[in-house]
């Protein structure tokens, strides 16, 4: 059981590493937010799944089970708010962009 948990934690840290490399390398705000929020959210969910396997189904295990959907909704809604705020603030899309349907829409 501990070995399975250890494998889950290793996988999670590997995904976190990919997300942070994307945060450094990609060229503009939207792409950075995309890579970072996907990879880091699933990596942290994987670490919490490893904690579930490590403790088994007692009180700490149930706390980790509750933390997974909570983290999931919090991270996605925060990313949504950040990308909309950045667009209204006036951050331009990067040089490689090919299409922008949101430009002429009245923002609220």
């Amino acid at each position: 059981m501990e070995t399975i948990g250890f494998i889950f934690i290793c996988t999670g840290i590997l995904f976190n590493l990919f997300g942070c490399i994307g945060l450094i390398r990609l060229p503009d705000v939207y792409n950075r937010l995309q890579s970072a929020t996907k990879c880091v959210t699933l990596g942290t969910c994987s670490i919490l799944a490893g904690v579930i396997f490590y403790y088994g189904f007692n009180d700490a295990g149930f706390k980790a089970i509750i933390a997974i959907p909570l983290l999931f909704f919090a991270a996605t809604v925060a990313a949504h708010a950040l990308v909309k705020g950045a667009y209204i603030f006036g951050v331009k899309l990067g040089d490689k962009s090919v299409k922008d349907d949101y430009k002429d829409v009245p923002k609220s």
Partner: protein
Amino acid sequence: MKYIAIFILSFIFWLFLTFSLDLSNIIIGVVASIITAFIFGRYFLKDVIPFLQPQRYFWLIVYLFIFTWECIKANFDVAYRVLHPAMPIKPGIVKVKLGLKTNIAKTILANSITMTPGTISVDIIGDEIYVHWIYVYSENPEEYSQRISGRFEKYIKKIFE
């Protein structure tokens, strides 16, 4: 009725969070759940009938498996784009028509789009959702609507509407 539903949900959440059945613990949980239901009861639910239909739970489990698979695929997609030396990206914001009516279904669909490969949802106006896409495969609206939201829309319609 919806106050009672909020009360039961928050009380179950409290029992899982503390994970003990002492008398004092249960009394504190009941008081906190009553306060929560009194403040937030009128916001979330329209009616409680969808909670009592069992086929919605079956489709919810099916949807969770499909969603987990898409989520893992999204991570390998991002890893490929990040680690490739030339970074094959071609970003853009596209407009997708939705076929869903209720607010909770639109919210769940926007969250699902944020976690699937290469897309993040920017805004919802009326029944159109604006999606930032990291690699715009095609210019045809039918094709990219199918590619972005077609996988989830039928399951979400069965679960939340």
